[in-house]
């Protein structure tokens, strides 16, 4: 079985964003970049599948990015159990939108052929959640998103999806694209010997031209980043009688805040 895991780097969630006024670009110089947390579930799932299937399974981590992504690929993918990595390094893909990313990933996946494609359910920076489903469209295969449980048997998959207020169980045939949600598994930490060996695993770097495709055009452009509006001062319901205070609070929540 050939498994592709699509991963990307995002700013650490504790990054402080310095944005005093609306701007067309973010100052990213102080950002620490880490593996997108949902991608860690995809990597772990691939490694667990390989552990169940034994040697007859190969995991390829696929990413798009500059040289900074290499440390994450080594530490969080190859050291954890991926067998090799492919990176698209193309200046034209800096700041790419979801559709551009999906098209380029699809080109690699079509070139090499995979039985299963795993990815995070969304990135924690762009937050679009679109890359997985778009990728499935370009590959003309099935997909299940926001998956919290995955079973494979005889060329089919059964995935449990998280939906509003419950779970949905989806079955389909492989190849398929599965996007991973928290709860699917517990990502492991790499052991020291595996960290040391990660650098020796095969890594391929390609451009769009190497893949035989033109750089796909962007369909969306980010025009402005604005800082969140400052929070309004909080209101304290002052009333000696707790029952009356609760009543007043409920009224405010219903009639003014309109949240209940």
């Amino acid at each position, binding site marked *: 079985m050939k498994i592709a895991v699509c991963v990307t780097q995002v700013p650490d969630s504790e990054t402080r964003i310095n944005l005093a006024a609306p701007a067309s670009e973010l100052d990213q110089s102080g950002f620490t970049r*880490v593996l997108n947390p949902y991608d860690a579930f995809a990597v772990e799932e691939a490694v667990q599948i390989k552990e169940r299937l034994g040697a007859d399974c190969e995991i390829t981590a696929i990413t798009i990015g500059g040289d900074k992504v290499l440390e994450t690929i080594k530490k969080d993918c190859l050291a954890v159990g991926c067998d090799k990595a492919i990176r698209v390094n193309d200046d034209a893909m800096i700041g790419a939108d979801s559709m551009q990313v999906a098209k380029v990933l699809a080109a690699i996946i079509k070139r090499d052929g995979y039985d299963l494609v795993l990815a995070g359910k969304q990135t924690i920076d762009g937050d679009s959640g679109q890359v997985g489903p778009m990728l499935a469209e370009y590959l003309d295969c099935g997909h299940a998103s926001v998956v919290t449980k995955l079973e494979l048997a005889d060329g089919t998959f059964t995935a449990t999806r998280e939906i509003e207020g419950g779970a949905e169980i989806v079955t389909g045939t492989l190849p398929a694209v599965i996007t991973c949600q928290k709860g699917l598994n517990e990502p492991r*930490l790499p052991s020291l010997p595996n960290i040391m060996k990660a650098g020796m695993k095969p890594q391929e770097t390609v451009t769009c031209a190497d893949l035989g495709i033109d750089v796909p055009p962007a369909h969306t452009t980010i025009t402005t980043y604005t800082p969140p509006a400052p929070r309004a001062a909080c209101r304290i319901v002052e009333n000696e009688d707790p029952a009356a205070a609760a009543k007043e609070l409920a009224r405010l929540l219903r009639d003014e805040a309109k949240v209940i």
Partner: protein
Amino acid sequence: MADPQSVDFYRFSRNLSDEERSVRDTVRRFVEQSFMLDIRRHFADGTFPVEIIPELGAMGLLGPSIHGPGCAGLSATIYGLICQELEWGDSGLRSFASVQGSLVMWPIATYGSDEQKNTWLPELAAGRKIGCFGLTEADHGSDPGGMETRAVRDGDGWVLNGSKLWITNANMSDVAVVWARCDEGVVGFLVERGVDGFSTNTIHGKYSLRASDTGELVFDEVRLPESSRLPDARGLKAPLACLNQARYGIAWGVVGAAIDCYETALRYAQERKQFDKPIAGFQLVQQKLVTMLTEIVKAQGLCQQLGRLKDDGINEVPMVSLAKRNNVAMALDCARTARDILGAAGITDEFSPGRHMANLESVKTYEGTHDIHTLIVGAEITGLPAYR
């Protein structure tokens, strides 16, 4: 899921390889996930979280720089970074790893027979077996050469009598590396739990290093075969060389404790308001923070150079002594300053500096006290030993 970034004012990380940074960050995450949630309880109860031992083994954190069966043989710098991150959590955790790696696996790898290496190293590296190191006795601490534990030849084997005190991992250990005097000088043995006449006791009522097992080893007519002696360990210099390995790890480790104290104090000072402004905005508090940071940066520089030298085969006792002496005192000062900046909050276990402060008192004393290291460096530079 923050990527752990240690205090790195002088960008020492630039001198590390990708692998070294990955190891550092991975160990930090491991300590956060597997150790920090329970440390307050273990410190309060005076217990060591034994369930973490196989995890340490699976991660490859036990004796990582040892060369031998089942051992990873990684660099001294990597070993140092691991110690730093473990002690960022607690000195008790780093002490466990120091003893297992530098004081048990290292002497077996260095002085042991092939049989001893094959039997013990893979088990100790995996954390399936636990070791301890018995050199100190009740009446012989800084001067272990005066030890009273005796080994006497008895036919093909030996008989061991005496006791060892202040022994880390004593009660949890499956095997003890024990140093004793015989007619020819100091010899070392591997004494397994369960052997007739060998028992261990716990030391209760510690103020310091509470999340660590400290105890006593007692040998009452313990009969040992010749095969349990470490064949290549000859004289007092053998256990002293083990200590030189462990001290190297301590020099790195305490920087982790100091970093945690500094970061805790900095965060607190930025949030705590008095006289209508954050206390971090007062000159006196800034001076304390800047002094802590400066001392941490200097200690980081020492460690990095010490590590690179050790990787090049240079591991001289006075150099390691200077780093152990400086860095432990530095960390203890940072812990005290951090405790001070936290005010009353600093005396509770809700914040770590008080715990580090108590722990570092042990670290200042064990593996050669601060003053003994002064004398080692003093003897080196003057040519005049001042021990006696």
